[in-house]
């Protein structure tokens, strides 16, 4: 509320040019896929209100930006394809192919190709997003899910939920380099910005495994303990790490908390109470805000990153799943 009023007062009082610059710097578009509603909710990061709802194919889940932020790509899992929408006009642009039941896409650091995990056939599909063609398929473990890309664009990490492994794959030759056993039902793989570590959440195992990317050695495991919440309910899914590689935010599913972890010490510093069954997380490009998708409470929580406080919850569609924030 305060944030919103400040913005308004500022915009009214300041000269027009300054106001425009300010809004360009501050107002991002937050895209939230709603798994049950077949929609994407678009939130204005300044007013923190839903400004638009995009109709999608069936069961929208993983969602990313592409084409220099001009496109938002969402997996329409039950339609066995991905869909591209324009981030400015919200118009449908085109379909992209995938394997059966695509879940999580990730873009190569160069902007193309895209790698998508297909939950139903033990494959990661490599897709040229401009040509709209499948480049190749990479066989992985049972129920591929999490996708991580090293900042230098060399290594792709895919997790498989029933094989309980993080597969390290050469992003260019598509060869499997190594497989690291993690705890049960790995969901998300996230590189630190320096590329030295990969953090892999294990939803059923209740841990996050930190892997050294160079050696594929397990450096340590992060455990979570929350008073009044049983161990069974602590189910880590979404992982986001700040660009300075100092702070990690980890969504803990039905524990309804986001853990704030010191990347250096791997100690949990704080638990932030958010909505119910929190799964995925997305920073604004300036890393001032972090958005969380809360599946069972149909809302998105807004975390102020600097103060580590939850400042607002925003009602979106049913079963919000993924979130990504466009820079403009």
């Amino acid at each position, binding site marked *: 509320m305060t944030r919103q009023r400040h913005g308004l007062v500022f915009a009214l009082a300041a000269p027009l040019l300054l106001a425009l610059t300010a809004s360009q710097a501050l107002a991002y578009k937050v895209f939230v896929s709603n798994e049950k509603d077949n929609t994407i909710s678009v939130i204005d990061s300044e007013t923190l209100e839903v400004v638009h709802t995009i109709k999608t194919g069936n069961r929208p889940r993983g969602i990313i930006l592409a084409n220099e932020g001009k496109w938002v790509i969402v997996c329409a899992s039950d339609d066995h394809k991905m869909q591209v929408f324009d981030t400015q006009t919200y118009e449908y642009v085109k379909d992209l192919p995938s394997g059966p*039941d695509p879940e999580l896409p990730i873009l190569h650091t160069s902007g193309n190709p895209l790698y998508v995990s297909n*939950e*139903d*056939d*033990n494959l990661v599909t490599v897709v040229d997003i401009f040509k709209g063609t499948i480049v190749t398929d*990479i*066989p*992985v*473990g*049972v*129920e591929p899910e999490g996708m991580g890309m090293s900042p230098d664009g060399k290594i792709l990490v895919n997790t498989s*939920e*029933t*094989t*309980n*492994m993080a*597969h390290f*794959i050469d992003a260019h030759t*598509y*060869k*499997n*380099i*190594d*497989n690291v*056993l993690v705890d*049960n*039902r790995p969901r998300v793989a996230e590189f630190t910005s320096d590329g030295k570590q990969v953090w892999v959440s294990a*939803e*059923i*195992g*209740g841990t996050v495994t930190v892997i050294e990317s160079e050696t594929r050695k397990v450096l340590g495991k992060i455990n979570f303990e929350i008073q009044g919440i*049983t*161990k*069974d*309910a602590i*189910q880590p899914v979404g992982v986001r790490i700040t660009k300075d590689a100092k702070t990690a935010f980890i969504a803990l599913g*039905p524990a309804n908390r986001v853990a704030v972890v010191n990347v250096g010490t791997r100690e949990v510093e704080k638990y932030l109470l958010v909505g119910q069954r929190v799964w995925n997380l997305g920073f604004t490009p300036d890393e001032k805000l972090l958005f969380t998708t809360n599946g069972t409470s149909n809302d998105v929580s807004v975390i102020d990153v600097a103060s580590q406080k939850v400042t607002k919850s925003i009602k979106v569609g049913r079963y919000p799943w993924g979130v990504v924030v466009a820079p403009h």
Partner: protein
Amino acid sequence: MSFSAGPGRRPARSVSCRPRGTVPRGFSLLAAVFVLLMPSVAARAQDTAPAETPPAPAAAPADTDEGAADKDVLKIRILMAREIREGRLPPLSLLDIPPPDDGIAGAKLAISDNNTTGRFLKQEFILDVVENADPAQLIAEVTKHIDAGVAYVVVDASAETLLKLSDTLKDKDAVLFNASAPDETLREEQCRLNVKHTAPSRTMLADALAQYMAWKQWRNWVLVIGPAPEDKLYADAIRRAAKRFGLKIVEERVFDYDPGSRRADGGFEQVQQQIPSFMQGLPEHDVVVVADEGELFGEYFPYRTWVSRPVIGTAGLFATPWHPAIELWGGTQFQNRFKRLAGRVMRPLDYNAWTAVRSVGEAATRKSSADPKVLIPYMRSPEFELAAFKGQKVTYRAWNGQLRQPILVATAKILVTVSPQPGFLHQLTELDTLGVDRPESKCTAFKN
């Protein structure tokens, strides 16, 4: 026989394989239609031998010298032992007739899942199946396999046969997974150190239903009990659950019913008269609980009671470890994998066999070993946990080897809820609000 066998398996009559009364029904027909419509799927199911599904990943052993790789591979054999129960009558509904590979298909899927991980770790899992209607012969065959080095056996047999088998093998390095018998005594007075139970016990199933009834505040129950001994055991579990969760059985009636032949040209004319008259003159009640594990008459009760009341228990709303329509927690992919392999939907016995075989796979993965002296104690330790499409880890109770798991409460078509229900608290895990808990357990075999 070793598994790679296709659907040419002998059509076992009345092989019932699930914990009876815990079964989603109504899917065989759907499965049949599915197969008819999708010949390619059916064909695929046949050649889905474990070693060849799914295709080898780019990196795994395929990259290395084949011969050398083969030598390094740890082979882990798992046996599925089935007692063909010929005396059993088939269930009332045509939709509920068990398929000949009930349970076996679940074990096969787990072998295939184990092998996908195993490929990365140089482990290979192999399933053997023995089936016999004679308990003594079945035990002899299993013993032969154990003496040949097999250490892990998934058992689909009666409580009596399971106990005999357990006692025969008690000095061997072997563990049995009870995938079908819900009997409480196997977890209590007659518990055995070498038996784990992936099938939920009757009290777990009854408690799962009762918690939901308590949540709904449908407190007053009429209990209708069938003539079979297992119906009486199910009724015991229902009485215990009612007491435990503050519900009241206002009257019990025994439905002394001779099922006769399952099929006759007609039947509904008489049933339509028979059930309402049987249900007359009862005190005020909210629900009717039917105890009919053999599914011989329970399905006659919904829509035929004297007053309009929902039916729960073994018919109507029922508790089950698995349901073919569940899509929660990544269940969709699991169901799809099963359908591709078996050409039909997954039944509770398939799920129980899957969790058993996956338990061995998970232990082998974590311990990088096939040695029963390593894996069996590990599966008994508090470190062991399994992801089994239930939204949280499943583990084995340390005091009796029972798999601790969320229980689904469902109708024939769809999930209604999952127990434990919110608000039923426990100091260690809410899952232990289902079934006999440690302080009340009479099992002593697991105490050192």
